[in-house]
């Protein structure tokens, strides 16, 4: 049986909720970032404890193993430098050809690395928080990726941290293109509530010629994501909308469940 204090408390909470729901979106975003800022001391505590654990793990690796690792990295570095030299030549050639054709020159990406500090606490969104904010020059809708492939986009920016919508979140739609003969284009959308390994690619034409293993990249349409960033590979596809369209399942190239470090593109 509800008593008078219960009714007063209920009234107060309902009123407060209605007020918060009806605040302008900009005020709500600031309010959210302000409250999220209370967790900043704990971010530092968690990351320093993680680093301490890593340092403790590193101290038990044998010298021989470290030397082998250094040798492997040195070899990989030399290979990458040769590839970079080749890519630089190709890039120069591309720029000259673009100039001859009168096309716009492609600016090289400027990227900044960021650490993932927090993950989405609820089960119905796919987001992470990174340790770059407006003081680092970050803005909404900047592309976030790893060396393996696309991760998502920045959705809100605080002073020292920002929220990133990951591939598979219902609010993270990416215009994509399959690397096949017909260059089938579609939209990468939400995944299932438990499908953390796969995302769905919809709006493909009914005659799309998709095969497992074909690479999916950003198309550059939509104005948020630059073109040719690897998204993942096609796993399977099935007809939808009575055969008028095709839906494919795509495995993201970046491991979205174990993100530690990401890169943000500053164009």
């Amino acid at each position, binding site marked *: 049986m509800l008593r008078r204090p219960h009714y007063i*408390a*209920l009234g107060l909470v309902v009123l407060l909720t209605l007020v918060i729901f009806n605040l302008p979106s900009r005020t709500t975003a600031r309010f959210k970032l302000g409250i999220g800022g209370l967790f900043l001391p704990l971010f530092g505590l968690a990351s320093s404890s993680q680093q301490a654990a890593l340092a403790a793990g590193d101290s038990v690796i044998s010298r021989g193993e470290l030397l082998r690792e250094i040798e492997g990295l040195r070899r990989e570095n030399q290979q990458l430098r040769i590839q970079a030299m080749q890519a630089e030549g190709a890039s120069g050639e591309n720029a000259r050809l673009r100039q001859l054709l009168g096309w716009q020159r492609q600016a090289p990406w400027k990227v900044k690395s960021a650490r993932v500090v*927090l993950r989405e606490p609820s089960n119905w969104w*796919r987001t992470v928080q990174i340790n770059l904010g407006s003081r680092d020059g970050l803005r909404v809708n900047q592309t976030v990726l790893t060396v393996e492939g696309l991760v998502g986009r920045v959705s809100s920016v605080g002073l020292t941290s920002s929220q990133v919508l990951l591939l598979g*979140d*219902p609010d993270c739609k990416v215009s994509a293109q399959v690397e096949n003969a017909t260059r089938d284009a579609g939209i990468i959308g*939400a995944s299932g*509530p*438990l499908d953390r390994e796969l995302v769905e690619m919809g709006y493909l034409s009914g005659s799309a010629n998709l095969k497992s293993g074909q690479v999916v990249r950003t198309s550059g349409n939509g104005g948020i994501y630059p073109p040719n960033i690897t998204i993942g590979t096609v796993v399977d596809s099935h007809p939808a909308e009575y055969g008028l369209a095709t839906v494919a399942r795509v495995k993201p190239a970046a491991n979205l469940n174990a993100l530690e470090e990401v890169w943000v593109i500053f164009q």
Partner: protein
Amino acid sequence: MSWLHALFVLVTAFLAVFWEAAFSGVRHLVGVQIDLLPALMVYASLCAGITTVVLLAVLGGLWFDSLSANPMGVSVLPLFVIGLVIHAKRELILRDQGFAQAVLGFAASAAAPVMTLLLLFTTRHTPLFGWGTLWQLAVMSAGGAVATPICFEFFGWLDRALVHPRATQTSFRADREIRRGR
């Protein structure tokens, strides 16, 4: 020391929200993150006053939403409704029984996400929803059923460690006193 008790509950809620966002061990294991706020709300509504219930619902909900992609304030009302219902019926609940605590934790941890999802759909948001949501609800409820008795144990231990124990009734009885005569 009700203010100290309320403070303990709120600090635990703050740390619980941070734990949910910072550590994904359970999520990697079963694919679902467990929410500890409903379990805390069961404890607060059974052992604390209505003010603590309101503070936990408002602050806990806002802290949770600030780290999530949820619209701000969407977690407040579900938590408060759970707290209010239990608080109103708490004279009828055997709060010291572990089984009763587990059942309440199970029900609260199932009800909170369902109400939050309903609110999200009502406010025209499109969260990830499908058959997998049933598995998520099952795991969250089971997690809540385990976490609630642990909450009671933890706060019981904290009370014993930090709060002065209540004076117990003396064994002295005036009618049993042996009067000395000369």
